[in-house]
């Protein structure tokens, strides 16, 4: 009984029933299968949160992004990204740059950090609500994720880590155009 000491003083040697053994075998196989999926997807899958991270000073990072944005060509749809690096800084309460123009097929390095508090980089493919990815944007860390967009269109960026009273106003986007 669970409210009394086990009836057998030596409960370790009491034989375990065949049903329990079968279930335990199934459970262990399930656990190992679940575990193995993760490294396997790293090898064979195209979606992994492998990233490079650096420690940065938030103000220094903001300056870097500012310089990059000022140097980039401005279009109606946002700043045009000419290289493979995309710099984004989250702050209370906006994404900077708010809108960037990218191309399909280019393996971009998206650099993320925050000027102040935790934010969340949540990118959603417009019109395809199930296609989204979410990453934590942490002050003091430069999070570099590689992304290659297959399809052109608008990719909306919202903040999904509570960052203060103006949290819901933080909206940005990538306009991904058809690449060469």
């Amino acid at each position: 009984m669970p409210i009394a000491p086990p009836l057998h003083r030596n409960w370790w040697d009491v034989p375990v029933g065949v049903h329990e053994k079968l279930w335990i075998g199934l459970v262990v196989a399930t656990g190992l299968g679940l575990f193995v999926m993760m490294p396997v997807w790293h090898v064979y899958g195209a979606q992994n949160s492998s990233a490079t991270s650096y420690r940065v000073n938030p103000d220094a990072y903001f300056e870097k992004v500012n310089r990059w944005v000022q140097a980039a060509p401005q279009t109606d749809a946002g700043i045009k990204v000419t290289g493979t690096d995309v710099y984004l800084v989250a702050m209370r309460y906006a994404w900077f740059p708010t809108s960037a123009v990218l191309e399909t097929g280019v393996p971009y390095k998206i650099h993320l950090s925050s000027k102040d508090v935790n934010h969340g980089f949540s990118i959603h493919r417009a019109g395809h609500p199930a296609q989204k990815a979410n990453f934590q944007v942490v002050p003091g860390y430069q999070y570099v994720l590689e992304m290659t967009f297959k399809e052109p269109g608008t990719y909306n960026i919202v903040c999904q880590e509570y960052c203060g009273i103006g949290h819901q106003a933080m909206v940005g986007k990538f306009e991904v155009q058809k690449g060469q």
Partner: protein
Amino acid sequence: MATAVMGGQNPFLARFWQCTVTGLKVDEKAVPVMLANAVAAVVFLLVGGILGLLIGLTRWEAVHLLSPNLYYLALTLHAFSSLIFWIIFMEMAILYFACTAVLNARLVNHKAAWLQFGLMTLGSAIGAVAVVIQGDKYDQPLLTSYHPLVIHPMFLVGVIIFAVGAFVGLGVFFATVWRATQEKTYRGSLPLVTFGAAVAAIIAAESLLAGAIAYIWQLLYAVGIVKNLDAEMYRVVWWLLGHGSQQINLAAMVTCWYLLIHLTTGAQSASEKVSRVAFVLYALFINLGSAHHILSDPGVTNAWRIWNASYAMYGAAMASMIHAFAIPAAAELALRRQGGTGLLGYWKKAPWGDPCFVAVALGVPLFGFMGGISGITIGTEQINMMMHNTIAITGHFHATVVAGTTLTFMGVTYGVIQLIANRELLSRKLACWSLWIFGAGMALFSMAQMWMGYFFGTPRRHPDVSSLPLVRAVSMEQLMAAGAVIAFVGGGMFILMAVGSLLWGKAREKGATFVLNATNGGQQMELAAGTPFDAPPPAADHGAHDLRGTMTLCLIFIATLAVVYATHWINLAELWKIG
């Protein structure tokens, strides 16, 4: 206190009364502090429940009840009332029960237990008041108070005081167990319920220690003593408290399942070895799983994330699946022994009129199918990218902590009222209904939120998703709100039934009172009928046991897990190339 003493004069006296149902001896001095904790718990459940309804009616954008300011305040108070205060106060009551009555022992120091209660009450009050009056210069902490949000120091002080109180409670638990072992109030291994409670207490000690470090450091920063606090380190350490506290709930809930299924059906674990090893897996690995909150964070390596977020190769998840078999198996054995037949027909023999049974019957499948499966999938490194901080997370933890743990603890409350406070329930029928309604409401609520998160990416903790350029899941918002209202009704019924029974329930007959010479109370205990040495031993031949019902249910579980898991990978493969 002049009372008859068995075994001669001794300064260490304790008064026990004997439970007429279990034959266990209950330390009289433990009862008031157990009840105080249970009452505080239920008060916070009520507060949290009301706030939860208000939040649900805000996330239903058609109603959009609260402004952002009030929404974030409500979120903070709801999170703390429901996730922290209701649950941890209840767990203190459970720990005190597990180390006293189950061991036929006396509380090592009931004054220390009252100190626990006092500190936790004081801390919760200070923390709650602080966030209400803090003003616009400060950010609402929500549950997580991520540095460097601007957090009011008084809030942090309140939480720290609460944590200190909880530590005192853990100390009382461990010291009581230690002394009961010395005094030989029980023979052999700790009873399974106490063992499970001890594992919960071990997890609690680690979680609270991590939390203390995070909050104290944050407090020092808030008052200007410390100038540097790495935001990612804060997250890593905080989540050891954040999810660790939920693992306490898991271990405590599973322990309560064993207790309640035994009290209601006479079920005993088919294999002490299997159940205990599963608890040991919890103790060893479960706190590693806090890493699943860091899966989409910068800074940590893939290896750290894969090893820890999988609870060390799913060691602790395997333990949950083992308990998920062992508990229904125990019930199946008991019900078949009572004449139950058929593949699943034996469940008809179960005491469906007993709310303590209904709590387990609902809690196990809701926790397992909805909470467990979603947890395994969301906690997978790559799948997490699609789910992190969406409202699917909220759906997941309402399935685990509310439809699972809270429902179970409601059953425990009904048991405490009857067996510890010795009151009849005002209406067992309404008590059962309260659980069905609450469970149904929460199931609907969680499913709707998981759907919103999985297929629409709707963010969590957001006061107005209608302002975002995202596709809105309008019908899911309605279902979520409907679930919240239904659960509120069920929860309200529970509160009325619990409070009403405590105040106006018919008094139950308490068993005989004993005064024991506590230093050798073990040997002097009079053994009542129904005590361990009287119980018929379980049949020795396990092979002949009919467990096909449990096997069927568990295979359905694995199949469901496989389908849901595969669906997520297929969805992930649709995404553009990342990493």
